[in-house]
């Protein structure tokens, strides 16, 4: 691992995290000693192909990993406190003002049975103790801040009545509603079409700058990372291959895999370049390294 250490005391520090999915006598490692640090107000990209374990890190940070997944080693320090073994009650207390989530799929992440306004107001009432009118007024403000058109009407609408881009704006409003110190953004633009992607990305960046929250930005898209992230961690097979300032990673990658990822990413400044998929030999080598890691460390827990 390379790259300058974070400037301040990290708000989030994932230390040597091991996580495996257990089921029917099989033990499938997902994270193999992954570590990363996020400083206050930092936007930290977590990049990798599907199956790299990046979404699982995001879920482990929020404490919402699926039930067959077990954290078998390491820690997740949020503001210095290990959050991997919190009780459900302690975890819930951390949500809202501590952490938030911008989910991957805006089409399915809002409850179809409740009005938009109620879905923003409920977190305000739960975590900030607002009464109904105050929460309603604040929800309207938030919709204005995320540039939803006709916010008064949207408050009273149901999710199916607004577009995917608008729904993602609503989810961003929910994520920022209680001014959390950390937001996990799990591929927040993947499900959107390209023009909307750019607007939503700009919105996340603007809200982040305004609120000063740190963001763990999970994505497979280095192009998105280059636009929004201060620092990047490259993940493969649940192992961190490289971490550092975004500019350094993009312009002078040290790991072969990072170079291969960059070669596989379309670039606006060089539109004529042919895209090359990650070479199979490299993937095979990385997979062999992951298996060797498992053999050397035994199965955790």
């Amino acid at each position, binding site marked *: 691992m390379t790259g300058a250490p974070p400037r301040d005391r990290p708000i989030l520090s994932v230390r040597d995290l091991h996580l495996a999915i257990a089921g029917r006598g099989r033990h499938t490692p997902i994270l193999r000693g992954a570590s990363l640090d996020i400083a206050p107000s930092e936007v930290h990209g977590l990049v990798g192909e599907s199956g790299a374990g990046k979404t699982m890190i995001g879920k482990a940070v929020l404490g919402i990993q699926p039930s067959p997944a077990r954290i078998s080693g390491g820690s997740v320090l949020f503001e210095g406190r290990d959050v991997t073994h919190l009780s*459900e009650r302690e975890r819930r207390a951390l949500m809202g003002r501590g*952490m938030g989530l911008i989910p991957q799929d805006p089409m399915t992440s809002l*409850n179809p*049975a409740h009005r938009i306004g109620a879905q923003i107001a409920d977190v305000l009432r739960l975590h900030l103790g607002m009464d109904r009118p105050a929460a309603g007024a604040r929800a309207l403000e938030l919709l204005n801040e995320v540039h939803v058109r006709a916010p008064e009407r949207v408050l009273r609408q149901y999710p199916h009545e607004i577009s995917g881009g608008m729904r993602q704006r609503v989810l961003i409003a*929910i994520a920022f509603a209680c001014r959390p110190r950390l937001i996990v953004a799990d591929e927040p633009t993947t499900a959107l079409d390209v023009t909307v992607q750019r607007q939503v990305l700009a919105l996340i960046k603007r809200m982040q700058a305004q609120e000063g929250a740190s963001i763990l930005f999970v994505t497979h898209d280095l192009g998105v990372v280059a636009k929004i992230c201060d620092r990047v961690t490259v993940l493969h097979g649940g192992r961190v291959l490289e971490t550092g300032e975004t500019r350094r990673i993009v312009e002078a990658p040290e790991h072969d895999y990072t170079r291969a990822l960059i070669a596989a990413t379309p670039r606006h400044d060089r539109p004529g370049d042919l895209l090359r998929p990650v070479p199979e030999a490299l993937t095979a080598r990385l997979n062999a390294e992951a298996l060797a890691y498992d053999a050397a460390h035994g199965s955790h827990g």
Partner: protein
Amino acid sequence: MSWTFLFRRLLLAVPTLFGVAVVVFVLLRVVPGDPIAMLIGPGATDADIAELRRLYGLDESIAVQFLYYLRDLAAGDFGTSISMRQDVMELVLGRLPVTIELCLVAMAMAIALGGTMALAGAYWRGRAGEATVDGAAGFILAIPDFLWALLFILFVVVFALDGLPISGRIGHDVGFRGATGFLLIESLARLRFDAFGSVLLHTVLPAAALALPLAAIVARVLKTSINEAMTQDYILMARVKGFSRARIVCREALRNALVPTVTLTGVQFTFLVGGTVLVEKIFSYPGIGNMAIDAVINRDLPLIQGLVLTFAVLFIAINLLVDMSYALLNPRMRHG
């Protein structure tokens, strides 16, 4: 839901009712059994019998009888009961409120019990709580409504539960004669709480017998659809929002799980209404189900026809109400 939808559904009910009328009419005249034979005394002559046949129109061919029947139906005349010598429409309408109240109480019990079981099962997903709910639902469902009725009576007799009446609809000592037949509603509206309590007490056991199988079905279907809703992305969002599990099950998942449950509950509710035939008889509960059994025993053709048509109207009305409730439950269907 629009008025055209409602109108179309009501229009569709006409051929359905016509079909029911044809089937019942033909069926009743094909099966053996003679209403006149039930009516006459031992010393009647052949001439008396022929006279009675002519009186009730039974001397004509089936086709002609049916045409007369249809002509009368169109005029709102359901005929005259052979065994009770009264207008069928009056007889049925006099008893219908009894059965409607019984079914509504049973329905409320089924929803309350089944809903509680489903919520408990979904809350304790994958733990002993869910297994208990599944086991209880399976057990309840294995026993049909009329057997529950008999079991209840057995319990009351064996344990001498004198407070729980097993026969009739209201205590004889309660001097309350309603004007409408909806005794529960009427006694409450007139603040006659003694009468209300008496009717409710008489209704508890037959309603419970009717409710139990439906409650088990509601518990199963609702629990399955809550569990299914609990896997959706918006539930993950609710967890990130920091909501408690109880709140997530009841506020986030339940609402989305209701539509499939209401569909099935509506269909099953028609079985509950059908179940009144035996259960009312067992508890001597004076509704149309009880009346139907007597009508069949007496081969009272006009009364049977009137009752079957009444049940058909009830079934159609229930299904219409179920369809209308979708729009209320599912916001996505409101602008169709």
